[in-house]
């Protein structure tokens, strides 16, 4: 997959701007200058990458529990009921990630809210509406300095 269809410019736009996106009046023009391109080409490349879903967004990654609060929750759901419960959980606006994982606790999701009170209310609502108890695993300490994720285009 590695080299399917991404230009040199697109690879650089994906890999080299995961942190330190320019905070200037014309950020895309600034990137264009850095990458020897022009503003419209850079903008169009990002529009395409975002339309294709490769780029989720250009913006901030917040440090956990600084702007709002969040937690990781897990549920053990019988396989035959997983689809329904997953849809029930995904429908909640407070949920941003919701994954199946191969374990007895097979549904894992992240819940965010403005404050602890709202978060606890959301967790209770999820248990009641979706029908199973959840395990609440809030972050206690963060050891990771987020500099983005380096994409290797060749082999891994």
């Amino acid at each position, binding site marked *: 997959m590695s080299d399917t269809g991404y230009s040199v410019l697109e690879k650089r736009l994906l890999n080299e701007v995961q942190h330190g996106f320019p*905070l200037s009046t014309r950020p895309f023009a600034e990137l264009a200058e850095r990458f020897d391109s022009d503003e419209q080409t850079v903008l169009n490349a990002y529009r395409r990458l975002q339309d294709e879903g490769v780029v989720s967004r250009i913006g901030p990654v917040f440090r956990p529990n600084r702007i709002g609060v969040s937690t990781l929750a897990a549920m053990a759901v019988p396989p035959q009921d997983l689809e329904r419960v997953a849809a029930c959980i995904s429908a909640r606006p407070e949920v941003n990630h919701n994954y199946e994982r191969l374990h007895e606790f097979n549904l894992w999701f992240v819940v965010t809210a403005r404050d602890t009170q709202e978060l606890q209310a959301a967790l209770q609502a999820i248990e009641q509406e979706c029908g199973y108890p959840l395990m609440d695993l809030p972050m206690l300490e963060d050891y990771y300095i987020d500099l983005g994720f380096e994409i290797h285009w060749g082999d891994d």
Partner: protein
Amino acid sequence: MQAMTPDLSQALIAEIEQGLPLCERPYAEIGRRIGCSEEEVIAAIQRLQCEGDIKRFGVVVRHRKLGYRANGMVVWNIPDERVAELGRCMGRFPFVTLCYRRPRRLPHWPYNLFTMVHGRDREAVAEKTRHLAESCGLRDADYRILFSGRCFKQRGARYLGRALEEPTGDCSRAR
């Protein structure tokens, strides 16, 4: 420049957590939406960065779309007195994208350190995890890799945002 009022600051966060509009002057566009100047938007984002509320500001990619089809949430049962040291050790590896301490929930859940490991497939994730364990002196550690199955939902966190609306990423799609 003065700090924004709390209301304005919340409005700004609600805008930027959905992603910058893809237009020539995205900060001016955000300022227009929330009622302040481009300079104030830029200064406020800089302040959020300086104060450590923002970890990074840039392109957020979706790993799966780039061929990293497997991710493993690796959960470790580490003695409490060593968890900070080992967490810092693991957090330095380039293929680790999250490294958190979380509470145990005994008796069902003894694991207190969580790392996210991405790879092209499950074997690559398992190999990287072995490498991680050995590099941090944890060859015999009690750990489990919880591989991802179906992805039901994935988007950025919206702490304050207009969570019920679709994101309005693009202020001018026309070329």
